[in-house]
C-alpha cells in the first residue's frame, strides 16, 4: 500500500482580500511617469486587467501577473485557485494563454512537499489553459504566497477593454459572488462543507470557457471580478462616464454567503472596498447582508461583461448551455448622480 504523507495545512491569510485598496493604489500610480508607445494598446494609464502590447498587425501580447497569500488550507487547492485567478486576466482581455511562469514565496522551515502540492495544482491549471509553464522564481518569505506571471496572445483589433460599455448595455456575470465571505467563514469553521465546495469549484473554474463564448458575441466590455468586488470592478467599467443599475434579485451568489454576511463573517477587504466605493453607490434596498456580498473581494471571480441589449439573451443562452452559471445582473444607463444604483 502506498504510504501517504500528511502535508499539514496552510495558515490562511487572504487571497484577493490581501489586495492593496484601490484608493491607496491609484494615488501612487498617478505619480509614475507614463509610458508612451504606439505599440502599447493597454497600459498603466488605464485600470485594465492586463497590459497589451502590439507586436505586429496580427499579433499582440497580453502580459499580467497575480499572486497572493493562502486563502484555503489545502496546498493543492491553493495552487489551483491562485493559478486560475492569475490566468483569468488574459481571458478578461479576450486572449489565449501562451505561457506562464511561477511566482513563489515560501518559508525556509516549512515542508518543501507542501510547495510541491501548490505547484502541482498550479501547473495543472496552466496545462488546462493550454499554456506552457516555462519557469519561475522563488524566494524565502515568512508566509507562503503563490501566483503566475502569464503571457497571452490576441489579435490587436479584438482586445476586450474593461471601460468601453455603452448606455443601454446589459451586464452579465459568469460566476456567483460571495467566495471571499465563504472562504473566510470556512477558515473559522462557520460555514458548511457544501458552501465551501461550491466556492472552490467556482474559484478553480477557468474563465477560459466563458471567454471563448463571450468573444464570439458583440460584447463592449469585459473584466474579471477579483479583489475590488463586483462594485469596484463595475466602477472601472463605467469609467466615471456612465451609471449602472444592479438588480439584486438577479444576482448570482453562493447562498450561504448571505447567511454568513448576516452573521458578520466579514473581511477587512470588504470594508476597504466599502470605504472606497461608498460615495459612488446608492443602495435602494435595505439589506445589509446583500451590501456585504456586493463589496466582497472575490478570489478568481467570474467575468463581468456588458453587451448590447439585443445580443444579451443569445449570449446568456450560449453561456448557460455550456453549464456556465451566468446571469444578467443589471444594465448600463446614462450618467446619474451616483455611479451605481442597487435595487
Amino acid at each position, binding site marked *: 500500500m502506498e504510504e501517504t504523507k500528511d502535508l499539514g495545512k496552510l495558515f490562511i*491569510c487572504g487571497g484577493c482580500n490581501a489586495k492593496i485598496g484601490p484608493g491607496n493604489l491609484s494615488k501612487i500610480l498617478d505619480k509614475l511617469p507614463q509610458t508612451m508607445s504606439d505599440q502599447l494598446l493597454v497600459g498603466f494609464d488605464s485600470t485594465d486587467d492586463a497590459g497589451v502590447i502590439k507586436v505586429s498587425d496580427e499579433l499582440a501580447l497580453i502580459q499580467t501577473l497575480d499572486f497572493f497569500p493562502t486563502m484555503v488550507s489545502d496546498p493543492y487547492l491553493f495552487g489551483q485557485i491562485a493559478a486560475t485567478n492569475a490566468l483569468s486576466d488574459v481571458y478578461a482581455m479576450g486572449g489565449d494563454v501562451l505561457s506562464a511562469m511561477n511566482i513563489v514565496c515560501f518559508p525556509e522551515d516549512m515542508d518543501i512537499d507542501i510547495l510541491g502540492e501548490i505547484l502541482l495544482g498550479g501547473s495543472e491549471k496552466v496545462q488546462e489553459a493550454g499554456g506552457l509553464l516555462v519557469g519561475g522564481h522563488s524566494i524565502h518569505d515568512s508566509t507562503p504566497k503563490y501566483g503566475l506571471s502569464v503571457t497571452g496572445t490576441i489579435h490587436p483589433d479584438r482586445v476586450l477593454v474593461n471601460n468601453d460599455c455603452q448606455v443601454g448595455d446589459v451586464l452579465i456575470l459568469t460566476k456567483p459572488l460571495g467566495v471571499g465571505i465563504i472562504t*473566510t467563514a470556512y477558515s*473559522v469553521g462557520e460555514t458548511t462543507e457544501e458552501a465551501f465546495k461550491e466556492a472552490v469549484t467556482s474559484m478553480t473554474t477557468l474563465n477560459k470557457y466563458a471567454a471563448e463564448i463571450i468573444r464570439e458575441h458583440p460584447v463592449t466590455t469585459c473584466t474579471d471580478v477579483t479583489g475590488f468586488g463586483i462594485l469596484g470592478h463595475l466602477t472601472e467599467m463605467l469609467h466615471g462616464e456612465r451609471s449602472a443599475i444592479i438588480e439584486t434579485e438577479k444576482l448570482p451568489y453562493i447562498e450561504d454567503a448571505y447567511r454568513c454576511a448576516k452573521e*458578520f*463573517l*466579514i473581511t*477587512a477587504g470588504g*470594508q*476597504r472596498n466599502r470605504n472606497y466605493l461608498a460615495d459612488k453607490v446608492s443602495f435602494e434596498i435595505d439589506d*445589509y447582508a446583500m451590501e456585504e456580498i456586493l463589496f466582497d473581494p472575490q478570489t478568481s471571480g467570474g467575468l463581468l461583461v456588458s453587451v448590447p441589449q439585443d445580443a444579451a439573451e443569445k449570449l446568456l443562452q450560449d453561456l448557460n448551455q455550456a453549464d456556465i452559471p451566468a446571469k444578467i445582473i443589471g444594465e448600463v444607463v446614462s450618467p446619474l448622480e451616483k455611479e451605481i444604483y442597487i435595487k
Partner: protein
Amino acid sequence: MEKINAIGDVCPVPVIKTKKALRTTDVVEIVVDNEIATQNLKKMAEQLGYGYSMNQVSTKEYTVVIDKNKADDEVCMPMTHVEVNEVKGESYSVFCDTQVMGRGDDVLGTTLMKSFFYALTEQDVLPDKVVLYNGGVHLAVEGSDVLEDLQTLLDKGVEVYACGACANFYGVTDQIKLAEITNMYRIVELMREANRVVKP
C-alpha cells in the same frame, strides 16, 4: 463588562469574538490594532442596534466599546459626545525643552530634531500646540533649522509658544520668530490642559 484583546487578529475574528462575548454579557470592550476592524465592529453594532464608541489610543491600538443596552436612538444622542472623545483621544501638544533630540551626540541630536519637526508637519493628526522652553526656544530663533516647519505648522493652525523668561535668559527675545512669547503660568496651564504631552 468583558474585555477582549484582539490585537493581531484578522477580520472577521474580532467580530466573532465580540459576538460570542455578547451572548453572555451586555457590554464588551474590544482592543484591535487596525481601523478597518473598528469599522467592521461598528457595522455589527449598527445592524444589531447596539451602542458603539471608539477611542484611538495609537495608530496600532483602538478601543471599541459595544453596549447592548443602548438602543439605536440612544446612541444617536451621545454620538457627538463620542466624536468629541475621539478628537480628544487623538489630540496632543508638543513640549520641547532642547535644541537637540535625545542624548548622545549633539550633531546627531540636531539632525534628529530637524527630522522630528518635519515629520510633525506630515502627521495625519497635527498637535494642538507646540511649546518651546529652556534650550527649546532656540528652535524659534532666526536661522533655526526648523523655522520652515514651524511656519508650516502655524499655517495649518497649530499654536506655537516660546517661554519669555528663557528667551530673555539666552538674550534672543528680539530674534524669536513665529512663536508667541508666553510665561510659566500659561505653560503650566497648557501642560495641564493637554490631552497628551509629546516630547521629542
